[in-house]
């Protein structure tokens, strides 16, 4: 493509962003951003509600180490498009239709592994002496988990949630393939209609959103973690 084409795509995309028509109606930018975040947040919340208790419990008891650690590798092998492919017949057989539900179903398994593995690794990594001391002081097992292990494992737990959230925000884009909303709409429609300004605008929006989620989570982690623990090492 000639260099002029490259300049044009930026000019066209800028024009797309400044066109007031793209801020009204059901296809408005703010509506798509909201749909995207709503879907992503719900997926991460459901995944966390499932994966955190399992990861914390397995970490506390040290049981099923092999499964807890390998679930992350299996998770990486599951391609997002394949998850969507599996979710579609499931959603259909449950009568949930296209769009939101199959996408949600496909996003949850994607978010489970990093949350669970990081919770497990975080809890296992807590110094055994500290736990013995807590036990010696008469804390119950749930008490140890809640007041000693979980706070000490917090950096890793949060970094698992961040990995999951960024993955989910990125992958929620694919929901547009099954008639879902969100920012993937612009990319999929832009591709189908060969409207490269729309495609480019959608891609920029999704990329920015993913990076913002990553950065925002990083900031939050820095504030939420106890000052004595501020050198979080990523497990994933």
């Amino acid at each position, binding site marked *: 493509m000639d260099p002029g084409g490259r300049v044009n795509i930026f000019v066209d995309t800028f024009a797309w962003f400044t066109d007031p028509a793209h801020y009204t109606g059901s296809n408005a930018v703010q509506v798509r951003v909201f749909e995207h975040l709503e879907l992503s947040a719900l997926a991460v919340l459901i995944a966390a509600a499932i994966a955190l208790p399992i990861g914390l419990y397995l970490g506390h008891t040290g049981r099923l180490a092999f499964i807890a650690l390998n679930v992350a590798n299996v998770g990486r092998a599951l*391609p997002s498009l394949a998850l969507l492919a599996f979710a579609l017949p499931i959603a259909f057989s449950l009568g949930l239709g296209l769009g939101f539900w199959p996408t949600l179903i496909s996003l949850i398994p994607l978010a489970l592994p990093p949350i669970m593995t990081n919770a497990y690794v975080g809890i296992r990594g807590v110094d055994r002496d500290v736990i013995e001391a807590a036990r010696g002081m008469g804390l119950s097992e749930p008490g140890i988990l809640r007041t000693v292990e979980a706070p000490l494992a917090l950096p890793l737990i949060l970094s698992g949630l961040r990995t999951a959230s960024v993955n989910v925000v990125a992958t929620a884009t694919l929901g547009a393939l099954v008639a879902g909303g969100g920012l993937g709409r612009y990319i999929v429609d832009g591709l189908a209609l060969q409207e490269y300004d729309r495609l480019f605008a959608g891609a920029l929006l999704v990329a920015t959103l993913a990076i913002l989620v990553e950065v925002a989570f990083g900031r939050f982690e820095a504030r939420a973690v106890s000052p004595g623990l501020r050198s979080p090492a990523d497990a994933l």
Partner: protein
Amino acid sequence: MTEGEPLIRWDWIGSHLDEIGFRLLQHVELTAIAVTVGFIIAFVLSLLILRIPRIEGPVTWVTGTLYTIPSLALFALLIPYTGLTLLSAEIGLVSYTLLILIRNIVRGIRDVPADVIEAATGMGYDNSDRFWRVEVPLATAVIIAGVRVATISTIGLVTVTALIGQGGFGFLILIGIQRFFSTELIVGAVCSVSLAIFADAMLVLLQRRLTPWTRVAG
């Protein structure tokens, strides 16, 4: 999906073996190019990082940012420049391998125990001999661990390139979704996951061959 349509129509698979074989080759080709090119770039950047440690921050930042950009968005951003081509797919796929590969290559080399390096120097190895014959072999296990993760995630990402006219098994998934034909999309998804598992097993075998001493310890 359609009423009365079975989830899997086995006769479709039997009559489409050619198509499945073609998609398999395409999937393997897209993955192999991406991981090979990604490895070469990552290796060169890792050598630079080991020599000039202060570039580690910027390199990690750039590759980390690339890794964060959603795959579909990255492919879409490339279309105005490189079109619906193999090149667009590979630029995206290669970008995603860099973070993991660089991290493992650098860590593998840095984790080589200092006494071993001293012993090698004492035995008369010069810097480049020591690097290639002592440090790289000892780092191989960690490096291949990185290649495994990069390969598995690339095999998954290849499916997304179906949207820019490539895709391997992803093409079957996409067509299956578009035609509401569950057999085709399930075949595509199962084949893609199986390929990832198979490739991972092959790399484990490769690692065992290249680092026979780890078997004694393990």
